[in-house]
């Protein structure tokens, strides 16, 4: 069973890697900048640069929940969505207000005055203007010159998404838990959830951690698995969440695995790091820093893998969708739309698989690392 699973995951992995060049191509549309669009509507995303910027913007976290924009009869750009709370820790203390205060400005032009603090939003980052400055000035490499970043504890789109996913998980699994009070075999949606819980417990936690210790970690592994999976799936909806594509989110997840691994490590684990048994003394000295580095690179790879896969997936899907706009002039509306639909449809199917696969890989490797830390070496 096990070797087959690993070959399968290796296969999917190759598939994923194969898509990475595509995503670079999506970026390289920039170089052929087609500026000859006949009539440009104000704010419409219809050129390759704008599409690239739009995708780049989507990949990032956002301070408001933006669904779509359109131009009304007067040619005014209208945005549909809702504002999210901004909570920032500035030099003058905490400031909280709704993100609508920025009036959809993301270029650092609109200055929000809050009790003696001037705040601007530039590329979804909130900067505090230095004292007595009235607007943002950029240096040569387009970095804000007269402002500094603040600690941004806002309920951003990703935090909002996290709360949404957590709510869904809590409601779903709480109802499953309650079902067991009445019957031993759940009905309805619980029948879907139960095998998934069993899968994580029996196929991920038990074989990787070992019969003796796995129970302590199932809670964490189940939470991580379902959180990543649900977040990935939510990212595929047109709501435009990109929770697991945020480096800070995957970093947090990986950090949890790292901390749990280190704190549950037994004597053997540390001995294998600092004084590897069974090798000559000079080798032990050489291996110690390598092993020590290994404890960090393992969760680091977890962080990068999840972040890169989900970001790449979003970029590729959006790029393929944008074919409908970019190829309109050369292929016609119907041809471009059909091509875009076919490709993005196919890729979205793969992304559905990737959504599960990444959740599985993250959880499985976390379990594996924890398993290495708690495993008892009775051989040698």
């Amino acid at each position: 069973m096990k070797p087959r699973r690993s070959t399968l995951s290796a296969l999917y992995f190759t598939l994923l890697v194969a898509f990475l060049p595509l995503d670079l191509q999506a970026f390289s549309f920039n170089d052929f900048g087609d500026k000859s669009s006949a009539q440009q509507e104000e704010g419409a995303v219809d050129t390759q640069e704008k599409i690239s910027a739009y995708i780049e913007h989507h990949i990032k976290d956002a301070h408001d929940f933006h669904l779509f924009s359109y131009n009304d009869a007067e040619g005014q750009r209208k945005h549909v969505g809702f504002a999210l709370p901004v909570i920032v820790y500035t030099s003058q203390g905490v400031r909280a207000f709704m993100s609508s205060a920025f009036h959809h400005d993301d270029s650092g032009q609109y200055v929000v005055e809050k009790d003696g603090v001037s705040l601007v939003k530039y590329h979804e980052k909130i900067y505090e203007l230095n004292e007595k400055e009235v607007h943002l000035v950029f240096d040569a490499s387009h970095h804000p010159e007269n402002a500094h970043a603040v600690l941004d504890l806002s309920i951003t789109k990703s935090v909002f998404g996290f709360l949404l996913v957590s709510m869904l998980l809590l409601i779903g699994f709480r109802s499953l838990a309650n079902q067991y009070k009445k019957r031993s075999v759940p009905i309805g949606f619980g029948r879907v959830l139960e095998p998934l819980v069993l899968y994580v417990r029996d196929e991920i936690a038990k074989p990787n951690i070992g019969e003796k210790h796995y129970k302590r970690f199932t809670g964490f592994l189940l939470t991580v698995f379902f959180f990543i999976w649900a977040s990935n799936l939510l990212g595929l909806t047109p709501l435009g969440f990109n929770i697991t594509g945020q480096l800070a989110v995957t970093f947090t997840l990986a950090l949890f695995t790292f901390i749990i691994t280190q704190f549950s490590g037994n004597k053997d684990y540390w001995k294998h790091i600092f004084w590897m048994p069974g090798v000559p003394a000079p080798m032990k000295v050489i291996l110690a820093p390598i092993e020590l580095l290994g404890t960090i690179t393992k969760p680091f790879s977890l962080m990068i893998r999840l972040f890169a896969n989900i970001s790449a997936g979003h970029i590729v899907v959006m790029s393929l969708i944008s074919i409908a706009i970019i190829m309109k002039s050369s292929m016609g509306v119907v041809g471009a739309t059909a091509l875009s639909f076919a490709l993005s449809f196919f890729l979205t199917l793969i992304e559905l698989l990737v959504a599960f696969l990444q959740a599985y890989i993250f959880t499985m490797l976390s379990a594996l690392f924890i398993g290495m830390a708690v495993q008892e070496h009775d051989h040698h």
Partner: protein
Amino acid sequence: MEQLINDFSPGLFIMQSILMLVVIFLMVKFAWKPIVSSLEEREEGIKKALESAEQAKAEMQNISSANEQLMKEAREEREQLMKEARDTKLKLIADAEEAAQEESAKIVAKAKVSIELEKKEALAQIKREAAQLSVALAEKILKAELSAPAKNAEHIDKLLKEVSLKS
């Protein structure tokens, strides 16, 4: 890499860490613990049910073998009883035969004794009769002889010879 570091939001990291801790806590407390314990309970129940079924099967086997044993014993006992009955019957018959023989022998012996007695009686009677007859005869002969004595003497001799007693 610089882009990545620039995109990394410390605020999001802090929020995420806090929320993650809360969510893990809530999920473990309200979802995973009850779910996993129910699942384990169910698995334990299934395991126990299977075990008890196995046990019941073994018990049934035991019972049927015990039954067989009982049957066998009963059969043996019956055989034994039959044999005893047969023996008793044979013995009874033999005893009865013996008793009958004894009885008949006794009866025969008694009959013999009584026959002997009767015979003796009869003989005695005959003797008495004969004596009386002979006396009567003699009287008659004497009477006649007295009338024709020579001739009669011869005749008496002859008669007496004829009336000789066997015993």
